[in-house]
């Protein structure tokens, strides 16, 4: 008995150490963001001054990130939901190949995709300079998450029977899609939407290459503050980012889609 208790204690201590490694720096950064002088520690006082500074310096990046995330969501919904329906209904080799192709951007490093986009469309100045250039990158990167989340729901419900019975009642394909397919796919759409927004808000690898000085997003601003601002400002900025994504993470846990961000999940 004592042997198992010692083993339990050792494993617990080890796991706590791992958790500390992950959580301590996050807490340090949250504290540093509201500390008057991080070098002197929390004794120097608590302040919202740095948050205010971040707001002055980077408010536009926060607004733009939200705009891009919502636009990405809209585009992935319009493209992804019908596509998931079609891929599920058609099935077979063709659908598997299409699914494989649209999933490639998860495996290929963002740097490579960004270079490819710049080589192809970088010459079109108006497009290159606008936030739409970043939107395109985010759509390509997040689309597979939406398609797979919706297809995962279709795999658990009997879409074919639903679809066919609606058809036998004389509903047109469009009405069936709108009134039968989409409402039934809602859990997948919600899970996909949360993933798309979370990923878009945090996307850096593509965005760093695709942005211009006038189209900075939040993660681009973060990198900028890490390189050139004092630690308190960088921390306050990171704190704002945490406040933005934590509700999304909690919502994902709530609906049981948290593992979706972790692409090792079986689909």
């Amino acid at each position: 008995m004592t042997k198992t208790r010692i083993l339990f204690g050792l494993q617990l201590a080890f796991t706590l150490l791992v958790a500390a490694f992950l959580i301590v720096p996050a807490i340090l950064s949250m504290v540093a963001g509201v500390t008057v002088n991080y070098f002197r520690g929390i004794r120097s006082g608590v302040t919202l001054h740095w948050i205010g500074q971040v707001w002055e310096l980077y408010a536009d990046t926060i607004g733009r990130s939200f705009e891009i995330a919502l636009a990405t969501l809209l585009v992935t919904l319009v493209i992804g939901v019908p596509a998931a329906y079609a891929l599920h209904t058609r099935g077979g080799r063709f659908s598997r190949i299409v699914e494989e192709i649209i999933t490639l951007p998860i495996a290929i490093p963002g740097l490579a995709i960004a270079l490819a986009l710049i080589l192809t469309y970088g010459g079109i100045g108006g497009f290159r300079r606008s936030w739409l250039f970043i939107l395109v990158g985010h759509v390509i990167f997040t689309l597979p998450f939406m398609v797979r989340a919706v297809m995962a729901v279709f795999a658990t419900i009997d879409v074919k029977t639903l679809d066919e019975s609606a058809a036998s009642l004389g509903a047109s394909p469009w009405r069936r899609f709108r009134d039968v397919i989409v409402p039934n796919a809602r859990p997948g759409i919600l899970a996909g939407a949360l993933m798309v927004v979370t990923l878009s808000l945090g996307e850096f690898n593509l965005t760093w290459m695709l942005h211009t000085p006038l189209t900075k997003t939040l993660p681009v601003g973060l990198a900028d503050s890490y390189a050139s601002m004092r630690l308190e400002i960088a921390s306050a900025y990171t704190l704002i980012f945490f406040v933005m994504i934590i509700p999304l993470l909690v919502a994902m846990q709530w609906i049981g889609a948290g593992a979706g961000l972790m692409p090792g999940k079986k689909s």
Partner: protein
Amino acid sequence: MSSSTFIRFCLVPLAVVVLAFFILPMTQLIVAGANGPLGLKAYAAILLEPRYRQTLVNTVLLSFTVTIVTLVISTIAGLFVQRNRFPGRSLLIAMLTFPLAFPGVVVGFMIILLAGRQGLIGEITSSIAGGKVVFAYSIGGLFLGYLYFSIPRVILTVMAAVEKLDPRLEEAARSLGAGAWAVHRDVVLPALTPAFIASSAISFATAMGAFGTAFTLATNIDVLAMLIYTEFTLGANIAIAAALSVGLGFVAWAILALARSFAGATIAAAG
């Protein structure tokens, strides 16, 4: 409109966007790699040019070490939280998986707070030993950063796999007289092999391609992603940058595809 026409119509937006903004650009990238002063040899440069080859070796060694260490840490922690019930367990799981949505840049900053010039490790070592230990801006910092990035993902994979294990197998082994260690060595760990393959692939492929963390920590860390970035932006060496990214993209995809065919799970690396 007939059903099959409607279904084909449903694929049109996807086809247009994927062709225009993924397939066409990736094709251009492959072509651009062969269109520099070196021609097709740009693709061989990564193996033949000593500087690039050294970077490749560094990146592979670093990614490999990160993968092994992550696997060991996450298996111990994942098995523990999935197998035991104790107060505070769900809080502990939340802490272990909280950084899942952190982008690479933020992970880099976490490492700076731990091991940077004003970092916690420096504080502790300077008060205990008198010497300030700072290693965030070196390959050691990058190693820690990739661990930070991979551990939550692998813990989740291990936990999911442990949950699916058939407890009867272990009971059978125990009733046949196997000790705790033998049960783990001969029953539990072999049953977790598919999860190990899947998570190794994720953590190896992400470490190979990760850019944000290296970018935050230092611009002169010698890994493949930073090499591509500096060749493109500072060197304006577009052909080499393109060839290197095609190579990197192919390797990342191949590892994941290979692991998937072994493990039978849909896996891929994010960010």
